């Protein structure tokens, strides 16, 4: 995938690749498009693919209407691979499809979920018993189906989100959040996390497996609530110099400086001082990359507002740069 592609674009390319049954490298040509346009393309592609064979699935769905639920479940589990079951479920009324889903094994449902028409998933998932949904979520996590889970987040009720947020690993939460479709729904989910879990998410983002720092920055940037963003960023600012420096480098490498600064801008002043006085910021090449990112994303005003918390010489250099560009 193109180096330097921002995180939102990267997530969209992965999702487009999934929709088209190819690899992210197979759709790397789209990296030059804004992530909103890649998403629009993906949504149209998904609609066209799912609509192409609807007739046959509508006929199967019509047959299920005349059979008792138990018979439908037996036939489906015996004869229908999850791919077909998902496509038929998309043509049934959500109530009827949920009635069947409530009687099917979690493993079967998890596989079907991967193939479910995203446009029809919401009403169906909302009608399936919450304990079943949680079971499916756990199964999907064990399969590392984070793209599917990110899509499901939009469809999940507050109760299910609460259960998931308080049950699954913080690493899984970060990875699901990276692929979440809606920033608002992602914010609602994060808001449900108890403080200890929120700290766990931050800890994982700063010191967990590869890719988690990027996911953490993406999360920070996508939250729609500044107070929540400030809390999350504040937890991060409590970390040691090494972890914060690594996060700074990840933000520079991943073109995630807007997300990083959005967090710094709303954290408390103690946190701002800790972050803005990182020794790494005084290294000319780091500062140069930071200022180039600020220029690219037109963040001069945000940067100017933060200079007060920088130490002597760094403050002078950044203030001078801000005044030249504003």
């Amino acid at each position, binding site marked *: 995938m193109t180096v330097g592609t921002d995180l939102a674009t990267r997530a969209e390319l992965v999702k487009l690749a999934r929709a088209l*049954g190819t690899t992210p490298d197979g759709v790397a040509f*789209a990296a030059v498009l804004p992530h909103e*346009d890649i998403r629009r393309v993906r949504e149209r*592609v998904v609609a066209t*693919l799912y609509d*192409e064979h609807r007739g046959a699935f509508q*006929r199967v769905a019509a047959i299920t209407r005349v059979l008792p639920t138990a018979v439908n479940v037996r036939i489906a589990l015996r*004869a*229908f691979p999850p791919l077909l079951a998902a*496509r038929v479920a998309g043509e049934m009324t959500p109530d009827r499809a949920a009635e069947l889903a409530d009687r099917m094994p979690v493993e079967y449902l998890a596989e079907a979920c991967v193939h479910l028409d995203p446009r029809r998933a919401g009403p169906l998932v909302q009608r399936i018993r919450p304990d079943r949904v949680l079971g499916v979520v756990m199964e999907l996590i064990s399969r590392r189906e984070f793209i599917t889970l990110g899509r499901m987040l939009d469809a999940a009720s507050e109760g299910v989100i609460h259960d998931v947020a308080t049950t699954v690993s913080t690493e899984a939460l970060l990875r699901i959040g990276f692929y979440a479709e809606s920033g608002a729904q992602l914010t609602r989910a994060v808001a449900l996390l108890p403080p200890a879990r929120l700290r766990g998410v931050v800890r994982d983002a700063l010191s967990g497996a590869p890719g988690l720092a990027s996911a953490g920055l993406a999360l920070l940037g996508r939250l729609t609530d500044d107070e929540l963003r400030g809390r999350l960023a504040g937890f991060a600012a409590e970390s040691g110099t090494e972890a914060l420096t690594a996060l700074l480098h990840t933000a520079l490498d991943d073109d995630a400086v807007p997300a990083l600064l959005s967090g710094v801008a709303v954290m408390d002043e103690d946190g701002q001082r800790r972050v803005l006085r990182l020794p790494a910021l005084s290294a000319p090449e780091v500062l140069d990359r930071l200022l180039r990112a600020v220029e690219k994303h037109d963040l001069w005003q945000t940067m100017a507002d933060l200079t007060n918390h920088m130490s002597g010489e760094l403050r002078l250099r950044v203030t001078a740069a801000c005044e030249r560009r504003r």
Partner: protein
Amino acid sequence: MRSDVRVVLRHWLGADVRAVEGLSEEALDELSDVLTAAREQQARALAAASDEALRQMPPMVRGTVSRLLGW
């Protein structure tokens, strides 16, 4: 944009074809190719799944079901 590529992209993207107008000719060709491949891949996957479903049914009803569903 080449006319054959335009036809493919119009089919897939409708009015949202505007979203890809910023792509180079080469990238548009690639997009057209992956869309066509995705369509073929889906047709193959559904055909395989349908065959599997029919195999699980009693032989005497397979023909009827197959005709009814257009598989």
